[in-house]
């Protein structure tokens, strides 16, 4: 009885997982096959799609641009969010509720809606924003905000913030010094996990990049979209390369959070 039930549960889990795995697996096989026409199985295997992708300067440029935007926006988000959360938790703990509502906004407002306003507000500003990476860095900060706020706020509740700072004050440290030398090392894991998680979202961001900037500053996703007319094998290799990076950063994020719980 117990065994047969276990069998059913395993069957359910494995079949749904297989269903989710099919597109990823198929893309992987497609990226390795020399040709796969109107048949169920491919004709032969080759690495040529990967080698032609990795030697395409346009791909390398796009990838570099994506990395630059993601890292810059995560840096900006860290600089803005970290002191803000510290002030919330140390001086005004009641504000946490307000912040939890505010950070829902980037979730609740679809990027397409935000980009309508962004485009009109900054298309004719004296400082050129639309069509440059700068506007993406600003908007990506809002995308990363909810994840970073939640993760860092969780780390803050896990430590005895008041006691730690008070002890540092007693020993003669200023609040800034206490924050940098005592609080920050305690937050490291939570912060890094949220950064890797946000990185995997930002690398896959397409809506803002397409509407606000487009081909004027070709990021990885825009490059992927523009390559849709070329060989499907080539785009598959591209998708798999992108997915490898997603895999790496989500894996790092989950490792860090697991280490945090122990």
């Amino acid at each position, binding site marked *: 009885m117990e065994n047969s039930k276990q069998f059913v549960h395993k069957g359910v889990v494995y079949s749904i997982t297989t269903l989710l795995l099919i597109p990823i697996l198929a893309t992987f096989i497609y990226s390795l096959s020399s040709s796969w026409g109107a048949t169920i199985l491919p004709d032969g295997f080759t690495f040529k799609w990967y080698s032609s992708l990795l030697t395409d300067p346009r791909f390398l440029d796009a990838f570099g641009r994506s990395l630059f935007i993601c890292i810059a926006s995560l840096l900006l988000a860290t600089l803005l969010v970290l002191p803000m959360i510290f002030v919330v938790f140390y001086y005004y703990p009641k504000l946490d509720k307000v912040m939890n509502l*505010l950070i829902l906004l980037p979730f609740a407002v679809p990027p397409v809606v935000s980009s*309508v306003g962004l*485009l009109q507000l900054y298309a004719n500003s004296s400082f050129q924003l639309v069509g440059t990476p700068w506007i993406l860095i600003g908007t990506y900060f809002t995308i990363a905000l909810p994840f970073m706020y939640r993760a860092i706020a969780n780390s803050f509740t896990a430590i005895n913030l008041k006691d730690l700072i008070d002890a540092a004050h007693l020993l003669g440290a200023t609040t800034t010094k206490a924050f940098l030398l005592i609080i920050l090392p305690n937050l490291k894991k939570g912060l890094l996990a949220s950064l890797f998680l946000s990185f995997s979202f930002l690398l896959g961001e397409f809506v803002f990049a397409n509407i606000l900037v487009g081909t004027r500053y070709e990021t990885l996703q825009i490059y992927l979209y523009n390559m849709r007319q070329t060989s499907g094998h080539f785009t598959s290799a591209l998708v798999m390369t992108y997915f490898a990076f997603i895999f790496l950063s989500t894996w790092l994020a989950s490792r860090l959070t697991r280490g945090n719980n122990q």
Partner: protein
Amino acid sequence: MNTDRIVQQDQRKQDIKKTRVFSKLANYKPILWFIPFAFFFYLFQIAPMIWVFINSFVYEGKWSLENYHEIFNSSFILQSFHNSVWISFWSSLIGLLIAALLVSSLRHLNSRIKEAIIAFTNMSSNFAGVPLAFAFIIILGTNGAVTLLLKQWGIIEDFNLYSRWGLLTLYIYFQIPLGALLLYPAFDALKKDAYEAAALLGASSFRYWIKIGFPILSPALLGTFIILFANAIGAYASVYALTSGNYNMVTIRVASLVSGDLFLEPNLAAAISVVLMLLLAFITAINQWLISRSYYGK
């Protein structure tokens, strides 16, 4: 002499007042750390929303409801709403059911498999947008391997990935991992004792789910449904990549009105955006009402 003393006293009083004001200001010094955050958040999140709201009521430079009139008189825009709501509703419902099935079975497996599956769903929740659309073209396109396989087995006659059914399949695919991640913690509320007690009293598995399992989970299910719905109705990249913007959906309409090749009408796009947000708010309100009515939501 006397007046001198009074002046001195006044001076001292003022000094005390000044230091008080300063120390009060010093109390507010930590607020300064909010300013850079607030500045960027306003610039890239709040200001665009305000622009959208205000300008949805502006038509050719004058205050008017003309943009909204246009929406409700244009069968093309109404069709985009109909398509978006249809796909969002069904993909959320089916995605939620599959995710619930996955999570409820997952709880019975050993922790190593559990962790691996959770890690996998976590990762596949990032497999969305343009890359997902491409993967679907490869497997379910006209010459896709799965399409050919299903045709050979005689299960389907023809499958058009670029139609509403194709899009629905794609949407369900990206709803499942998200639904599973959101539902996973909620299933902790189901205690094994309750199931065993029900079984002892002679309830079948089905009866347990209808009478105990489902009522306990209903707030979480409703809450997850609304997140999936919002996720689907705001989705843009996957439809755009799959159909090059040819399938009529709300997000496609909005984007083409602000960044298309011809007929830019940002104010009409703003009005459509406001209607979309109202629709989301309305559905969230119904959802909250349902949750508050359910016994376990209290």
